[in-house]
């Protein structure tokens, strides 16, 4: 078994929160990512799901060094890239890329599509002449199924789906091997979502890409991903193959997530989940499992002490030899 393309170990990042004018305690650090570890193999898609604020986007951005990281290791293709300077990291920028959630993110509204792509091609291939660059640009447009006529358009003239494709083309221009896709379909209509997803799958097949597919659309993640990691409040609580996580989830949170889907193809979990059962209090470090306040298993078992024991925070442990990992005392 070859080594993974990307390996992340015990990654941690906190954001300092300034004291708010309207009350609240002084400046404190909320850990956005609190010790996550995962790996992605070549030609593989790892889905990353969780509610807003769980740290998915922060993780993605950390891999691209758009956020600094407090501690932990990121190893890409066998090289430790965690503490590389911006200069030393530059060559990796052509390997690791990101599709941003915001459709307009990659596109400077004053620059035409053709110039956006030309620029991207030139960055890592400064030796090409103009004719070569233009032919590469045309190739890219074909790869993402965009009509050549759109080359002279400005971003403002493009539809949502077209903008998304230009963003993908731009990313492909630098010829990456690993792409973090942050909610690639969220702002798009259903019928266009399907087009974009199919495109991403085709590209994976053709170019041997790996994806970290961040999304809150669980159905989509199921279909697209080989493996899925579920995040809750900065930690990974379940990690396994797409089948394992969606059909035989072991962590109570994962079960609740999938049960909120409506097509009834998943286990119906007792929806006794109250929105206000409790929220994990970061200011009290000795609180144990983060999900306990909202956990139906915790409440059903009479609030066992082990779940609130700070010294026994649940760790991601493999279930037998299946490659299915769960962080729960009662899995």
């Amino acid at each position: 078994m070859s080594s993974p393309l990307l390996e992340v170990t015990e990654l941690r990042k906190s954001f300092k929160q300034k004291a708010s004018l309207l009350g609240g305690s002084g400046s404190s650090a909320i850990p956005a990512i609190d010790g996550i570890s995962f790996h992605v193999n070549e030609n593989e898609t790892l889905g990353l799901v969780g509610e807003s604020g769980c740290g998915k986007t922060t993780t993605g951005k950390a891999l691209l060094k758009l956020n600094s990281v407090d501690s932990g290791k990121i190893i890409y293709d066998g090289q430790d890239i965690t503490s590389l300077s911006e200069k030393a990291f530059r060559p990796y920028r052509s390997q690791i890329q990101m599709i941003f959630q915001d459709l307009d993110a990659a596109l400077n509204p004053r620059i035409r599509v053709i110039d956006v792509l030309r620029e991207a091609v030139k960055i890592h291939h400064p030796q090409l002449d103009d004719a070569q660059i233009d032919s590469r640009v045309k190739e890219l447009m074909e790869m993402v199924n965009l009509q050549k006529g759109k080359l002279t358009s400005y971003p403002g003239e493009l539809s949502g789906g077209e903008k998304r494709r230009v963003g993908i083309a731009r990313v492909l221009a630098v010829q990456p091997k690993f792409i973090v896709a942050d909610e690639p379909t969220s702002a798009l209509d259903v019928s266009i979502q399907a087009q974009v997803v199919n495109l991403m799958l085709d590209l994976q097949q053709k170019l041997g890409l790996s994806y970290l597919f961040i999304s809150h659309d669980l159905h989509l993640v199921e279909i697209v991903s080989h493996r899925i990691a579920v995040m809750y409040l900065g930690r990974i609580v379940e990690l396994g193959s797409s089948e394992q996580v969606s059909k035989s989830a072991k962590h109570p949170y994962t079960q609740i997530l999938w049960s909120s889907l409506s097509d009834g193809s998943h286990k119906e979990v007792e929806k006794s989940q109250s929105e206000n059962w409790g929220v994990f209090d970061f200011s009290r470090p000795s609180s144990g499992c983060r999900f306990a306040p909202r956990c139906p298993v915790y409440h059903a078992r009479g609030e066992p002490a082990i779940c609130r024991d700070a010294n026994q925070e649940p760790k991601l442990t493999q279930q037998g030899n299946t490659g299915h990992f769960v962080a729960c005392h009662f899995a």
Partner: protein
Amino acid sequence: MSSNPHLIIKDLHTYFHSPSRQGFVHACNGVSLDIMRGETLGIVGESGSGKSITMLSSMGLLNVGPGVVSGSCEFHSRNGAISLFPDLNSHVQLTHENGQIVQVKKDLQSWQKKTRHIMRDIWSKEIAMIFQNPRQAFNPFQTVGDQIRESIMLHTNITNKKEAKEKAYYWLEKVKIDSPKLRYENYPYGMSGGMCQRAMVAMALASQPSLLIADEPTTGLDATIQSKIVDLLFELKESLQLTLVIISHDISVISRLSDKIAVMYAGNVIEHGKADEILGESFSKRHPYTRSLLGSVPSRSNVTRTGRLPSIRGEVPDAVNTPQGCRFYDRCDAKTPAVEARCSQKNPNFSQVAAEHQCRCWLYTPEAEHA
């Protein structure tokens, strides 16, 4: 289920000027909807379908001109039928060319005056609306509770501040907000998205309307919260016997709540019928768009053998340059030689495909079926 009409929209045409698209958008192209008392109508459509504009322009909430140019909208209140478009024809002059409208003269000011006068008695008291982005619906400088209390005092016959406050607590509890008395004092920014949405529902229902319009009530919320809001709406509509109109692009939300569904595409209602028939796989006479749309929703059951999702090729037609024939023509894979010519020439009318189920497609006209 009663078959009393509650809100009847007929042949609505709405235009508005879009500076970014440099032209007039024909947002509603003859939209007709029958909303019956006690029923839940789900309006499904993608961007550019006109689903929100239909309700907004009927309620007089569209801020950009010219707005409604023709059609009728009748609201059957407790006191009888009221037209929400009073004397529309006397405020608007239309010039037609080749069956299309090319010139509009509309006296916006006096029209708005008239509609506001009518809506004053209806809005909140009989029809209420909740929107996407709940935080934006609230005044950021006032507590959520006070805003609900004010709405109660304005729209019901409770004039006592204390009584109204009690009622506000009642409604906050009814929408399953924890510790309603504490939450009353919250400001909108201090509430999570889901909670704010519930508060908006509370505010809408506190004035006891009989018809609730929910415009994309779950978009932007987390999956678990979306599910809870949908459950909440379901419970409320049952217990309060509301007539509910749900506008959403999310088919799962629509399917969980609707009795009837209207599918909209590029300014037209292209299918209108019972939810089971439209969503169920067995019904054969569905609009090609509906069928493709349902087929492209991400779910394991839709994935093809090659591991891809069926998609609809192409894009929604330009809202300013509307095509001549059927608006789905370019993207339709169900065209047969028998109907193709007509599809490109003329926008189809409704055909009855089952009891209470209509479809706007040339494939289902009697002549086509016998061809």
